[in-house]
C-alpha cells in the first residue's frame, strides 16, 4: 500500500485495500455501516485469505468525498454503486459482498442487481448486523430524533469512541453522513414475496445486539435458493470491530470453499 497519487474515479468509489497476493480467486467488496469509511476494513488486510482481493466502498460524505451531496433515497444509491462496480470490472467477475448494518442492506440490493445482470458472478453474500428485508424496523426511529437524543442513541449503540463523540468539530462533519445513512437503513423495506437470490447467504449477528439480534436476522436464510446459514458471534452490534479475528476466520473459511 503505497501513497495515493492521482485518484481515479474508481479509486474514489472503491479503493483496493489489498490486492490478492497470488492469482486472484475472487474479490471481496466490503460495505461499511452508516457513517463508516472504507478504512474500517484496512485491518482486514493482514488476515483475509491471500487469494482474495479486498475492496471497500467509499460513499459521499467521508474522506476525499466529504463535500459531495449525500444520497437520500435507495434507488439512485444502488444505481450509482452498481455502476461503480461495473466500471471497476468487479460486477462481471467472481466476487462476494460483505456488508454490516446499513452496508448489509446495500449488499443485498447489489447482490440482487448483480444476480440479474451478471448471473453467477456473486459467489456469496455476507450480511452482518442487519434485519432481514421483511423484518420490521426497530422503533423508535433514530433518524427522527432531535439532535441531542440522536447523539445519545449513537453513544449507546457503541462503535464510535467517546473521544470522537465528544469532539463537536469532528461530529459536525460526521453526523450528517451518519444520520442520512441511518435513515436509509431505517426506511429500507422490500415488499413481501421477493424472488430468492441464487447466491448463498451467510447472515451473522452479535449475541448481545439488542436491535439486530437473532430474531431480526433469522429471516435472511429464506432469501436464497442456495444453502445458507445464520451465525451467532460474540459481542454486540459492532462485533465486526470487537471480534475481528473470529469474523475473519469465519469469512475466510467460506471464501475458500466458494472457489
Amino acid at each position, binding site marked *: 500500500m503505497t*501513497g495515493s497519487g492521482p485518484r481515479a474515479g474508481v479509486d474514489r468509489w472503491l479503493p483496493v485495500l489489498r490486492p490478492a497476493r497470488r492469482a486472484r480467486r475472487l474479490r471481496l467488496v466490503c460495505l461499511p455501516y452508516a457513517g463508516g469509511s472504507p478504512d474500517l476494513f484496512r485491518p482486514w488486510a493482514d488476515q483475509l485469505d491471500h487469494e482474495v482481493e479486498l475492496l471497500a466502498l467509499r460513499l459521499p460524505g467521508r*474522506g476525499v468525498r466529504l463535500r459531495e451531496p449525500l444520497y437520500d433515497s435507495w434507488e439512485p444509491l444502488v444505481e450509482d454503486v452498481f455502476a461503480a462496480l461495473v466500471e471497476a470490472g468487479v460486477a462481471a467477475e467472481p466476487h462476494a459482498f460483505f456488508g454490516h448494518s446499513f452496508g448489509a442492506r446495500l449488499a443485498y440490493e447489489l447482490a440482487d442487481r448483480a444476480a440479474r445482470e451478471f448471473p453467477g458472478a456473486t459467489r456469496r453474500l455476507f450480511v452482518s448486523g442487519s434485519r432481514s428485508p421483511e423484518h420490521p424496523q426497530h422503533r423508535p426511529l433514530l433518524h427522527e430524533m432531535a439532535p441531542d437524543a440522536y447523539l445519545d442513541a449513537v453513544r449507546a449503540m457503541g462503535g464510535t469512541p467517546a473521544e470522537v463523540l465528544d469532539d463537536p468539530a469532528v461530529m459536525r462533519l460526521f453526523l450528517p453522513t451518519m444520520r442520512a445513512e441511518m435513515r436509509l437503513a431505517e426506511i429500507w423495506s422490500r415488499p413481501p414475496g421477493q424472488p430468492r437470490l441464487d447466491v448463498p447467504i451467510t447472515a451473522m449477528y452479535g449475541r448481545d445486539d439488542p436491535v439486530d439480534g437473532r430474531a431480526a436476522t433469522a429471516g435472511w436464510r429464506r432469501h436464497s435458493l442456495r444453502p445458507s446459514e445464520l451465525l451467532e458471534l460474540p459481542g454486540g452490534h459492532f462485533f465486526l470491530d470487537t471480534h475481528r479475528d473470529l469474523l475473519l476466520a469465519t469469512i475466510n473459511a467460506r471464501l475458500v470453499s466458494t472457489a
Partner: protein
Amino acid sequence: MSNPTTGTDRPDAQALQEWVSDACRGLGLDLPDPENDFFESGGTSLTAIRLISRAEEVFGEDALPPEDLFAHSTVREIAAAIDRNTRS
C-alpha cells in the same frame, strides 16, 4: 511543489512535513514519505483527533481543521493545511 511559506520565521514545507511524520509516529503510525496517507496507514477518527490537538498545541488554534484532515490526508496535504491555516 513550490515552497508554500512566505514569512521569514516559518518552517519550510519540508520541515512541516517532517513534523507531521514525527507527530504521526508519536501516535503509532508510520508515514515516512510525504505521499503516505494518514488513513491508508492506519489512522482512525480517534488518532485524527489526537493529531489535530497536537497540531493546535504546537501551531495554534484551528491549525488543522478536521474538514481539512479528513478530506486531504497525505503528509504533504496535512503539512500544506497547517501552513495555510497558520499563515497570518
